[in-house]
């Protein structure tokens, strides 16, 4: 009772052809499933980035001749010396590091309870609501969010309008350090929650119940049971927030109004205002080094947390 092969579904023929082609190319079979081959497109794509870093490194060693607007043929460390001694650049670097640290602490402080409530709540509706409240800003992008803050905090903004109704003079709430940090906290919040959520989900609720049945108060349970168990998530979240806010461009540019530049803004200005690509590149290298050092120190101290990609053997 064999059917005629020509009456087989089209997809079967297609698959046969594909299998035939496949075994022609890799006669031993399974060649494509060589994991390194599967990884190669991703490695090549990210190779573009490495190539770009090479260019940055090269230009950063060449000084700009301001009379001819040409770069020097020889390599020298002049740009780096300038970057590390110029008071303006130093203050920008410190402002970025300090800002990123403050933003990380505030973000974690707010994101932890948010994630905890979202993970632990019995109400499916509340969980969904918190998820949507989280994803909406995450999916909207920095520029639009910063624009929203401009409307709220601006001199003719909503807060000042409301203050005006009760007779308070308009306050200057924008274009200062706190407004940039505030904008960054709001920008980083969803990243932190998404890094924390899997870690908190992994903590069984019974452990908290056990802790409390042994007489611990909820504060003790949080501090001695939940927080230590959530450590990988907190590290992952902290690392992401720290590096992203350290290197952010949009919030200092829009909410800082040019007076609260972070390193990224200084780099941009060197490339597009001063046109000193060499100096700008040396700043970029310094920023990369600072960021990597911070990450490396935290990795060494406490491990990679939840950042490890696709690691089953944790």
């Amino acid at each position: 009772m064999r059917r005629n092969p020509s009456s087989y579904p089209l997809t079967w023929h297609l698959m046969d052809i594909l299998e035939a082609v496949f075994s022609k190319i890799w006669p031993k079979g399974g060649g494509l499933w060589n994991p390194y081959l599967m990884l190669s497109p991703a490695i090549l794509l990210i190779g573009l980035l490495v190539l770009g870093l090479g260019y940055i490194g090269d230009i950063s060693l060449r000084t700009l001749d301001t009379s001819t607007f040409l770069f020097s043929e020889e390599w020298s460390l002049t740009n780096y010396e300038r970057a590390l001694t110029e008071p303006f650049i130093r203050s920008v670097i410190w402002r970025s590091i300090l800002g990123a640290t403050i933003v990380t602490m505030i973000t974690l402080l707010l994101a932890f309870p948010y994630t905890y409530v979202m993970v632990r709540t019995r109400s499916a509706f509340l969980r969904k609501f918190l998820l949507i409240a989280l994803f909406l800003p995450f999916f909207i992008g920095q520029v639009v969010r910063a624009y929203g803050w401009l409307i709220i905090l601006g001199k003719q903004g909503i807060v000042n309008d409301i203050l005006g109704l009760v007779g308070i003079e308009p306050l200057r709430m924008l274009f200062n350090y706190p407004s940039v940090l505030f904008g960054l906290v709001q920008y980083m919040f969803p990243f932190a929650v998404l890094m924390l959520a899997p870690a908190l989900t992994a903590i069984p609720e019974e452990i908290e119940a056990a802790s409390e049945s042994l007489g611990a108060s909820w504060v003790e349970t949080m501090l001695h049971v939940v927080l230590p168990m959530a450590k990988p998530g907190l590290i992952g979240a902290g690392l992401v927030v720290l590096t992203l806010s350290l290197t952010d461009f949009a919030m200092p540019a829009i909410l800082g109004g040019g007076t609260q530049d972070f390193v990224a803004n200084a780099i941009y200005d060197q490339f597009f205002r001063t046109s000193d690509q060499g100096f700008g590149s040396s700043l970029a290298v310094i920023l990369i080094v600072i960021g990597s050092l911070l990450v490396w120190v935290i990795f060494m101290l406490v491990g990679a947390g939840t950042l490890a990609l696709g690691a089953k053997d944790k």
Partner: protein
Amino acid sequence: MNQPISQKLFFWILVVISIITLSAPTLVVLGASLTSGNIIVFPPDGLSLKWYEALVEKQELQDAFIRSIWVAMICVFISLPTGTLAGVALTKYRLRKRALIQTYLLLPFTIPLIGSGIGLMLVFGEVGILGSLWPVGVATAVINLPFMIWAVSSSAAGLDPDLELAAQSCGAGPVQTFFYVTLPSVMPGIITGSLLMFILSLNEFLVSLLLVDARIVTLPVQVYNSIRSIITPDLAAVSVVFIAVAMLAITVLDKLVGLEIFLKSK
């Protein structure tokens, strides 16, 4: 488990602060786009849709929007196959130098965006393709690729390797096994990852800013350039486009895989 009042209070105060901080800009932009006045004031002058009507005549905003959609589509087109293969490879196989590969694949996250953007600008400039739109799509694919790999690898972790062996012992070749067994089982990850890539690419601002010139500005760059001059309600109406796309993406994500997928432990 009954939580004590003090715990509830502590958590809820922080959660409410968070919700307000998260939602305020979105709500205000929505409100501002509906004002009937020429400037944005509170309380609003009245409701109208005139700023949306004004958008119809703003050709440059529409062009910028279409360019942004193109960029996002190119980004997904590149990152979907690339990230899927890498995600499956990372989860299914024991790799030598695993830590090194992971660190390398995380480079887009560890290198500051401004560094990646300028690096890619120099590379594209050297090849002479700066000024076209597709390199912007490639760039957004590169800088967000770890999201795609992460989404696929976390859903591939649930894939039982015995299933693939079963398929092969039933006579399926490697191609059939991949398309009928491996791929469907990582589908939630692929959908999540692609949506994330699309949205992040659509919203990408800094790398866009570095790679576009005046002829090919994308929508986020267009909005940025405009808010630096003067804040008018028509800009709020444009921003609502972003909000609408975000809402659509969230709905699709929720219907297809469920937002709760992000709460799952790996």
